[in-house]
Structure formats: structure tokens, C-alpha cells
């Protein structure tokens, strides 16, 4: 296993170094992909080997980072799960990237891109392996920094620079909070190794524990993209090259969940009920607002990014329910909820990775992300369309794909809470169930829009009309993830059992979790509900085949004629008559107008001679998320105001400067006088 671990390091390191040293961009593209695939595969191997052998992996290099307990990696089950998640998405994304980044040949440095991609994957793989605080922070920040550089690839777009600034600002703010959380935790510990922190955490005062938890929620939440800390996400994810977006959305934000579980569950060992409640509320808000903003997006990748906010919200609902049940002593329910959250995280990695890769193919073929300029791509790029459809079905939580299974499990994990006797738990869970369902429905609507407007109907621009299928490496990358979406759904039973072991032993969870199913069925604790994803899938397939055969051979007419679309007697059907992305979302925009508060700007030019003839009508509408308007804008404004004040200090007058000096002197002397007296 250590060998595999070293192979992982070597793979990524090779990719990074070879990319920098390669003679041409084409070589750089290929060697970096090779390194990343080897590294990712080895990472996945390490994780699987861990689950198979159950031996912890320990790699320590005390000579490095000797200022705080050395570089230390200790892989446990929780870390192995997230390592597997990284590897799972890294391999297809790297393959995909080999083809995708061809478009950058000659425009941007592919050597740099390849090296950064490998370093990004490397640091991301090492975050869940880290065994002490400094190692963790180093990898964590390495991950942020490399991904920042990856975001800053396409710098000809003015938005990219802004996105990068937002990203780095938010992620650094997050780091500060995480750092504070860890160091607060380390206050009473001998070293900063996680094992020591765990022992020390028990001796901390409740107030300190709460502070650590809150800091961790905010710090890791900003990486995970929880509302209201999500503002960087819809900016940075679309700006990055698509395979990087897939990695960021699919994997990186999950490491926020990892961090929270590591601190909240592993190190702190759970806490009072309100911790869980807080997570549920944050998760619910993120889920519903995330999907609502996703619905309003016309930019395909921004839509996907907001949808990541939604899904991370769902994960947090599960995790929060786990914390809550843990505090109530309902162990089986807690196991279910936490496993459901993790399972959803895994699934989201697969389908969101797939969707971003699909969006990348669209971007690759048409050079636009604006859905109002797309359409009809299913003809030019059938494979990409199929893969995107699979991803859409999965993310909409429809059977028989993996998203459905984890949503079902999330529902089921909230149910015991409605039955709880603790005050406020039941109402909270009830609302969470409502939100979960609403989110599911809205996500379905959102992805009908994403897929339907992008891939179906008549192309809305010539770029979309002449779209071509992606090269093979990209199709293979997407194919792997599409298969994963199917496979993760079908293999739900073994996966859920494995997830039980991931959490076993942490925070009062029993070392051997009760199995959540047997044979082909998932069974929730107390046989509350049973469901077999495999058989549902099988049923659907059999019935569909049956129906098709039935229709085919029952003597029904077989005639088929191709004609124009019916258009109320109009002659020709053009793309301008189609429903657009904006139009599709209009009903929901009206329903949730209170939330969106769109700005409207209607300007009508009349004919100069008569105002009964309209020359042109221009209608603009924009939605500024209220989080930004009411939370970030005032803060930014205040900082800027203070900055202007601070600037006034440097007024240019030497007299003023000397006055400060004298005042400082007299001030300190006065303090001395007062204290002496």
C-alpha cells in the first residue's frame, strides 16, 4: 500500500515535471495526462487497498515541516473515502483534459497548465491523507493555490481575472478560519498531530469546542460553497478549463465536507444538537437557493456551478442530520444520515464531473457557454449529448441512476427525525424534507432546461449548428463517469455497507455499523423502508424493452413520416421562435420573484413620427443574488471606507507625520504615567 502511495506521488510528480520539461505543447498535454492518470489510478488503488486490508497507511517525514511536527500522512477510513473520490474523478478528467486542452495550444502555456493540474491533483489527494495540522494546511492551501492558477488559464476573458480574485479571497478567508479552528483546538495539545488533537479536544471547554466548530463550519463551508460563502463558486468554476471545473466542483468542494467531518466528527467527536441543526439549516438554505439560482442561469457552466451549491447543501443536510442524531444518541439513524451524505458526495462527484465535462465538450465545439446561443447539439455531438443526458438524469435524482439512490437515502435519513421527541427537531426535519423534495423537483426542472435548451431543438447560432463531436479522449473521459453514474447506483448496497465502515469508530459510532442492506435491497434502520436500486433499474429496463417489443410486434402501424413542426400555420420554423433558456425559467422566476428581485429595464423606441409605431424594444433583466447585495457589498463598502480613511493618514504633510510620532510618544508616556500613579 505504501508502494501504491508512492506511485501516486510519483505519477503526479512525473506529470508535473514532465509537463514543464516537454518540448512542445502537444507532448505537455499528453505527459501531464499520463502522470495524472497514473497518479489518480494509484490514489484510487491506495483507497481500495485500504478498504480491502484495513491497515492504516502511515508515511512520516519529520525532516520536512519540522517547525510543527513534520510532514505526516496517516490514512484512515474517512480519508481513504475522500482519496477514492479524488482518484475516481481525476482519471477521467485527466483523460478528458488531454483532448480538451488542445484548444489552448499556442494560446496559453500548456506546460504550466499540465504541471498545475498534476500539482492540484497531488495536493488534493494528500489533503485527506494529512496526519497533522501543518501538513493539512499545506496541502489544503496548495490545492487552493494550484486551482487558482488553473482558474486563471483563460485570462483573455475579463471575467476570469475577477473570478480569480474572488476565488482567492474567499479561499484565503476560509484558510484563516480553518487555521484558527485548528490552532484553537491545538491549544491544549502536546503536538498538532490529529491523534493528539483528538485527545485534547475532550478536555476543552464547551465554549471553545463551539468556537472551533463554528470556525470549521465557516472555514470549510467556504471551500464547500455553502451559501452565503459560495460567492466564488459560480464565478471560478465556469472560468476554469472544463476538466478543472469538473475536478473543482466534483472533488475539491467535497474536501470541505471532509474537513468538517474531520474536525467536527473525528477530532471533536460530535457536539450538542444545535451543531447538527445549524448544518441542516445551512444545507437546506444552500440547497434551495443554489438550485433556484441555477434555474435562472443562462450560462451552462454557471448553472452547473450553482447546482453544485445545491448538492453540497444536500450533503450538508445529511451530515447535519448525522450530527443531530448523534447528539440525540440515535446511533443507527446517525450512521444512516452520515452515510447518505457521503454517498451523495460520491455520487455528486460522478455526475457533476460528467456534466462539467459535457459542458466542456459543448464549449469546445461551440466556443460559447450561453445557452441562448446553443441548441440542437444532439445531432452534431450525439455521444456528448447522451453522456450529458445521463448526468442530467442522475443529478435530477431520477431512477435508476445514482443520484436517485442517494436522494432516497437522504429522505429516509430525515424520517427518524420527524419521529423524534426532542423539541424543534421534528419541525426542523419536516422543513428539511420539504426543502429536499422542492430541491429535487427544481433540479429536475433545471436540468430539463440545461439539457433541453442546449442539446435539443433548432440551433440558435451558427456555432451551435456546426458543432462537432469531441475527440475520443474526451469521450472516453465522459464515458467512464457515465458508467460510474450507473454503477454507483446499481452497487448501492455494497457501497453503503462500505460507507458504514468509513464512519465506524468516530464520535461514538460503533466500530461495526449495522449493515444498511443485504442482498439487493437497502434497508433503513428498523426496516423502516426498503428499496432495491438494482431491481428498480432492472424493472425499468425490462418494462421499457417489453413496451418497445410490444409496440413493435403487436400489429401497431409502423409508418413514420417526417414533416415540419406544426406552427399554427406559420410557414417556416426558425430558431428565433423557440423557447429560450430565459423563457423556460420564466414561470419559476415569477413564482420566486420575491427572492430573485430581478431588476427590469424596458426601453421602447418609438417611430419619430408617431408613437403608435414601435421601432425597437429592449428589455433587460438582471438578478443580483441578494447575498451579494446585502452581505458582501456592505462589507466591501465598509472596508473600502476604512481604507480611504487609512489612506488619509498618509496625507503627504511631514508635519502631520511628525505629529503622529509625537502623539504616539506622548500617548505611551501618558499611559506610563497613569499606570505608575
Amino acid at each position: 500500500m505504501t508502494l501504491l502511495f508512492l506511485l501516486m506521488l510519483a505519477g503526479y510528480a512525473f506529470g508535473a515535471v514532465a509537463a514543464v520539461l516537454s518540448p512542445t505543447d502537444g507532448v505537455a498535454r499528453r505527459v501531464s495526462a499520463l502522470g495524472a492518470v497514473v497518479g489518480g489510478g494509484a490514489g484510487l488503488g491506495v483507497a481500495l487497498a485500504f478498504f480491502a486490508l484495513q491497515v492504516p497507511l502511515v508515511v512520516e517525514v519529520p525532516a520536512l515541516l519540522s517547525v510543527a511536527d513534520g510532514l505526516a500522512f496517516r490514512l484512515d477510513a474517512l480519508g481513504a473515502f475522500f482519496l477514492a473520490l479524488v482518484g475516481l474523478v481525476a482519471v477521467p478528467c485527466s483523460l478528458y483534459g488531454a483532448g480538451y486542452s488542445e484548444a489552448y495550444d499556442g494560446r496559453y502555456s500548456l506546460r504550466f497548465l499540465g504541471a498545475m493540474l498534476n500539482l492540484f491533483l497531488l495536493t488534493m489527494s494528500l489533503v485527506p491523507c494529512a496526519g497533522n495540522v501543518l501538513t493539512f494546511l499545506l496541502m489544503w492551501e496548495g490545492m487552493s493555490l494550484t486551482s487558482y492558477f488553473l482558474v486563471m488559464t483563460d485570462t483573455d476573458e475579463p471575467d476570469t481575472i475577477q473570478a480569480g480574485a474572488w476565488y482567492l479571497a474567499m479561499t484565503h478567508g476560509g484558510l484563516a478560519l480553518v487555521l484558527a479552528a485548528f490552532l484553537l483546538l491545538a491549544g491544549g495539545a502536546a503536538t498538532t498531530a490529529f491523534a493528539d488533537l483528538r485527545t485534547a479536544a475532550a478536555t476543552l471547554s464547551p465554549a471553545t469546542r463551539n468556537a472551533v466548530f463554528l470556525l470549521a463550519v465557516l472555514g470549510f463551508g467556504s471551500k464547500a460553497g455553502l451559501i452565503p460563502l459560495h460567492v466564488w463558486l459560480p464565478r471560478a468554476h465556469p472560468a476554469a478549463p472544463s476538466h478543472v471545473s469538473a475536478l473543482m466542483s466534483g472533488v475539491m468542494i467535497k474536501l470541505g465536507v471532509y474537513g468538517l467531518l474531520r474536525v467536527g466528527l473525528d477530532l471533536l467527536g460530535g457536539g450538542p444538537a444545535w451543531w447538527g441543526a445549524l448544518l441542516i439549516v445551512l444545507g437546506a438554505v444552500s440547497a434551495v437557493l443554489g438550485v433556484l439560482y441555477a434555474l435562472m442561469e443562462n450560462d451552462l457552466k454557471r448553472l452547473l456551478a450553482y447546482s453544485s451549491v445545491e448538492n453540497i447543501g444536500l450533503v450538508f443536510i445529511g451530515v447535519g442530520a448525522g450530527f443531530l442524531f448523534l447528539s440525540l444518541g440515535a446511533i443507527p439513524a446517525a450512521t444512516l444520515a452520515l452515510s447518505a451524505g457521503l454517498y451523495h458526495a460520491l455520487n455528486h462527484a460522478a455526475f457533476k464531473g460528467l456534466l462539467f465535462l459535457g459542458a466542456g465538450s459543448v464549449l469546445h465545439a461551440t466556443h460559447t457557454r450561453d445557452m441562448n446561443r446553443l441548441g440542437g447539439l444532439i445531432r452534431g455531438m450525439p455521444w456528448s449529448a447522451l453522456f450529458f443526458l445521463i448526468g442530467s438524469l442522475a443529478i435530477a435524482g431520477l431512477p435508476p441512476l445514482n443520484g436517485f439512490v442517494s436522494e432516497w437515502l437522504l429522505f429516509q435519513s430525515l424520517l427518524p427525525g420527524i419521529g423524534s421527541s426532542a423539541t424543534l427537531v421534528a419541525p426542523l426535519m419536516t422543513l428539511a424534507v420539504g426543502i429536499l423534495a422542492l430541491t429535487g423537483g427544481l433540479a429536475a426542472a433545471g436540468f430539463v432546461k440545461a439539457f433541453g435548451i442546449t442539446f435539443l431543438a433548432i440551433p440558435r447560432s451558427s456555432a451551435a449548428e456546426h458543432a462537432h463531436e469531441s475527440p475520443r479522449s474526451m469521450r472516453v473521459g465522459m464515458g467512464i463517469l457515465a458508467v460510474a453514474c450507473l454503477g454507483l447506483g446499481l452497487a448501492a448496497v455494497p457501497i453503503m455497507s462500505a460507507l458504514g465502515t468509513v464512519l465506524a469508530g468516530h464520535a461514538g459510532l460503533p466500530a461495526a455499523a449495522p449493515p444498511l442492506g443485504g442482498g439487493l435491497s437497502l434497508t433503513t434502520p428498523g426496516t423502516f423502508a426498503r428499496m432495491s436500486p438494482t431491481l428498480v433499474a432492472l424493472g425499468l429496463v425490462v418494462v421499457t424493452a417489453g413496451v418497445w417489443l410490444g409496440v413493435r410486434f403487436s400489429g401497431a402501424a409502423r409508418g413514420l413520416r417526417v414533416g415540419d413542426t406544426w406552427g399554427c400555420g406559420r410557414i417556416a420554423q426558425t430558431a428565433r421562435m423557440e423557447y429560450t433558456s430565459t423563457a423556460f425559467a420564466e414561470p419559476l422566476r415569477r413564482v420566486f420573484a420575491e427572492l430573485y428581485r430581478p431588476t427590469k429595464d424596458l426601453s421602447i423606441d418609438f417611430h419619430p413620427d408617431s408613437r403608435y409605431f414601435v421601432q425597437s424594444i429592449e428589455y433587460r433583466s438582471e438578478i443580483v443574488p441578494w447575498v451579494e447585495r446585502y452581505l458582501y457589498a456592505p462589507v466591501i463598502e465598509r472596508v473600502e471606507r476604512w481604507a480611504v480613511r487609512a489612506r488619509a493618514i498618509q496625507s503627504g504633510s511631514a508635519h502631520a507625520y511628525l505629529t503622529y510620532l509625537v502623539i504616539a510618544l506622548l500617548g505611551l508616556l501618558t499611559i506610563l504615567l497613569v499606570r505608575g500613579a
Partner: protein
Amino acid sequence: MVGYALEATQAALALGLAPGVVGLIRWMKARLQNRRGAPVWQPYWELAKLFQKEVVVSNNASWLFHAAPFVVFASVVTATFLVPVLAVPLPFDGIGDLLVVVYLLLLGTFFLSLAGLDPGSPFGGMGASREMTVAALAEPTVALAIFALALGAGSTNLGQIVARTMTQPGSALSPGHLLAFGALFIVTLAETGRLPVDNPATHLELTMIHEAMVLEYSGRYLALIEWAAAIKLLIFFSLLGNLFIPWGVSMALTPATLAIAAVSLLVKVVVLAAAVAVLETRIAKLRLFRVPELLSVSFVLALLAVTSSFLLR
């Protein structure tokens, strides 16, 4: 073995009965409006005729347009295997619970909406957009109504819910149950495209939803979609009938009880169909943008249902 046979029978029954239910509602509506109305079995003739006609497909449509009717139909048929139409416990009960049924139906809606967008017709887009809006907004109600039931029964699996209500008849009249019934009834109207949410009798209004979406379909494809819609209605009726008023559902697989079950099912369906018919004659269609208000009423009902369930426990 008997169980599997029963599953097959049940599915066949649902398939067979469904167009009749649609015909029944139409007929009753006509009578209520002092018209003679088409016979109850008129939908069967329509389906048969549609199956015999050739399909006309838009030149903009892709393979998805061809696949969608099969997926839609298959999803509702799969759902019939899970819903207790005649008897509990069904052998497939462990495969899926009420949530699975709901998501299977959503799968159909999803594909139908995509198919609506596919030919590029503005009507299709309009219908798809509205259908998804209604479906999304109905979803929380469904989930909460299910949970109100599940809380009482201690399970979301349908067989369990039915069995529980049978053993504790009093629970059928508990406020939670009644409120959940109301909520689910409204959702039934919304999901199956009945008044006041949608008008199934027209495709010329700009407010139409379902009909706009399937406007481009013809021939056997349209037949499959119409049939699937009818089955969906029947599924909702049997859910309403058998989950809330389970009496008559067979608990043992004897011919006698099954016969009783069949009769009781028929009675329940007729009663519900009559209720829908009366409702549809009495009220006008809501403006599209007032539909969410109706759905929020149903959501509140469902919320109250859950609340009273755990308050009274």
C-alpha cells in the same frame, strides 16, 4: 409464485382499466353539463385508432423524441408494480416504496418535457417549462404527504402503510390522514393535468400545459403517451383510495378477497372519478401564475398533516 402472478394481474388491470377511468370522467362531466357525452369506452377506441395511424415527426426532432414515449410509458408501468392496486403485501414491495413511485413518475415527466422541447416548437417549450414548474412545486407536498402517512405506519413502503391502517382503523380518520389526503388530492389534480391546473380538453389555449407539450406527437407515440397519462391518473387514484381508505384491499391471496378487492377498487375509482368530474364542472381553470398558490395550499395541508402526525403521536 402466486404473488408474481398477482403483480402481473395488477399491472394488466391497471393498464386495462386506465383508459376507462378517463372515459368515465369525461362521460360524467358531460352528463353533469347536460350533454350526452361519448361512451365510457371511447378512449379505448381512440387508443386503438392512434396505434393504427402513422407517426408524423418533426424534422427537428432527435432520437430522444422517439425514445421518450417508451420511457414515459415504461416508467408508469413500472410504478404499477409497486402500487397496491388489489392486494398487500406484494412481492415487489421491497423493491421500492412510495418515494420510488413518485420518482418514477417524475422520470416520465422529465422525458416528456425534453420531448416537448425537442422539435423546437414554441408550444412544446411552453408546455415543458410549465410542466416542470408544476411538477417541481408539487414535489414538496408529495414528500410531506408521504411522510405524514409513513410516520403513522412506521414505514414508507406501501404494503406496510396499507396494513397498518387496516389494523388501526381509527388512524384513517386522524387529522393527519385527512389533511394528507387533501394535499395529495390537489397534487393529483396538478400532476395529472386536471382542472383547475390544466385543462385536458383543449389544446388551443395558451395556458395549456400537458397538451402543449405533446402537441408534436401523433400515432402510436401519442397513444403511448395518452395511455401513460391515464395510467398515471389511475395510480394516483389507487394511491388515494388504497392508502387512505384501505378497506377492501386483499390481505390474503384468496380468490374471494381478491374479488372483493377488485370491486372495492372499482368503487373507489368511480367515487374519485365522480369527485374529479364534479370539481371540473364546478370550477374554472386557474390563471397559470396562480397555480403556485394552489400548490402552496396543498403544501400547507401536507405540512399540517405531518405536524398533527407528530403532535398526536
